[in-house]
């Protein structure tokens, strides 16, 4: 598993929230709780080949990942969002799978962070 610090930038995320670590912890907890829903929504959209829904879900996940300064994940979400916006379904499944995996990696990292008391 990637180290917490390599995957995303906790310090930067907290700084963006004005140094409010308690707020960061709340947001992180919420994201962990909601992540399954985001992944399910992405997978449902690509299964249905619903490009509008896929674009919307990718857009939502993009901002979530950006909140934690998870840049690699954000870029993946951006690529998927743009692909869905173009209406071109080629590559959508593979990109969705990558994005879902990225979300799960972040969730695991945040959960580890929480368990280790890094918050």
């Amino acid at each position, binding site marked *: 598993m990637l180290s917490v610090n390599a995957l995303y930038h906790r310090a930067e995320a907290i700084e963006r929230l004005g140094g409010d670590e308690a707020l960061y912890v*709340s947001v992180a907890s*919420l994201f962990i709780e909601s992540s399954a829903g985001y992944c399910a929504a992405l997978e449902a959209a690509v299964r249905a080949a619903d490009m509008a829904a896929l674009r*919307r879900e990718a857009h939502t996940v*993009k*901002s979530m990942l950006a*909140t934690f300064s998870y840049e690699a994940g954000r870029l993946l979400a951006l690529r998927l969002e743009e692909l869905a916006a173009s209406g071109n379904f080629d590559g959508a499944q593979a990109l969705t799978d990558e994005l879902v995996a990225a979300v799960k990696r972040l969730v695991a990292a945040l959960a580890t962070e929480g368990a280790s008391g890094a918050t």
Partner: protein
Amino acid sequence: MNRIAIIDDSEINLTLFRVLVSKLGSCEPLVFQESPKGLEWCSENLPDLIVVDYMMPEMDGLRFISLLRAIPGREEVPILMITANDDKDIRYEALEIGATDFLTKPVDRIEFSARVRNMLALGASRKKLADKASWLAEEVAKATAAIHAREQELLFRMSRAAEFRDPETGAHIQRMAHYSCLIAGRLGLSPEDQQLVLQAAPMHDVGKIGIPDFILLKPSNLTPEESAVMMTHATIGFELLKGSESTILQAGASIAISHHEKYDGSGYPYGTAGEAIPLFGRIVAVADVFDALTSERPYKRPWPVDRAAAYLRDTAGHFDPSCVEAFLASWGEVLDVYAQFQDAEIPLL
């Protein structure tokens, strides 16, 4: 307390913004995860600021802004739209349809706080300006009303001055003006024209100022020569009142010159007939004669009102029949006016 409506389909964002707004102080966050519900609330309640996400199911941020701006009273509410850094075209479109400013994701607390505070200050200034404009409009209306009241008082006192040497009284002016207004109303004239005849009718005999006392106050019948002089009060009144920019004085001039014309053309000063006589002149002719008949004079007792009404009805040729009909159709109100304005100290119109 500033009410800030936050519309975003992401629970995480709503939580984030709710906390950030609460930390601003004097701000109450109202959160809506479904944009239609957010729109409904904003249409029924006036928020001080709206924070709205762009990408939402059912109704996106652009559609929300478009619909909100179409609601009366919501044209000026500050709207902060949340977009990603790469949504430049979306930002342009949002500006076109009414977004006030933008927040980019990921949300930065300092930037959020600064933008929200600035927009609340802008909204407060705008409201203060609108309130001031509204207050000013009220003050102007009051001042205008005061000017109108003074104008009316001046005209009334001028009319009283003309009648002062005459045996007729101030109550006569009031009665015949109100009779004239009743006729105008019954004829279907606009409220503005009814008010105009009410205000202008008192000036009908202002030209009597130019009639010598020995003729004006002669207790017995006038000689033909004296009658001819007396008749000039119509044109004298017209000369006194004509040429003004005031619609009341213009109406007064028309009434002064025409209220002694007769429907069959046998009146004075010009022998004008029928509907060539200005309508206000035809109206005042009925009102003035009725009041003259039912008033006491040094040379006669007042007629009973029913006898005076019969005279109007039966005197073919003198009056415009439609004006007589309108007057008699207002009989109840005529009697009220007759009772209200008796020959004692009376208030101005």
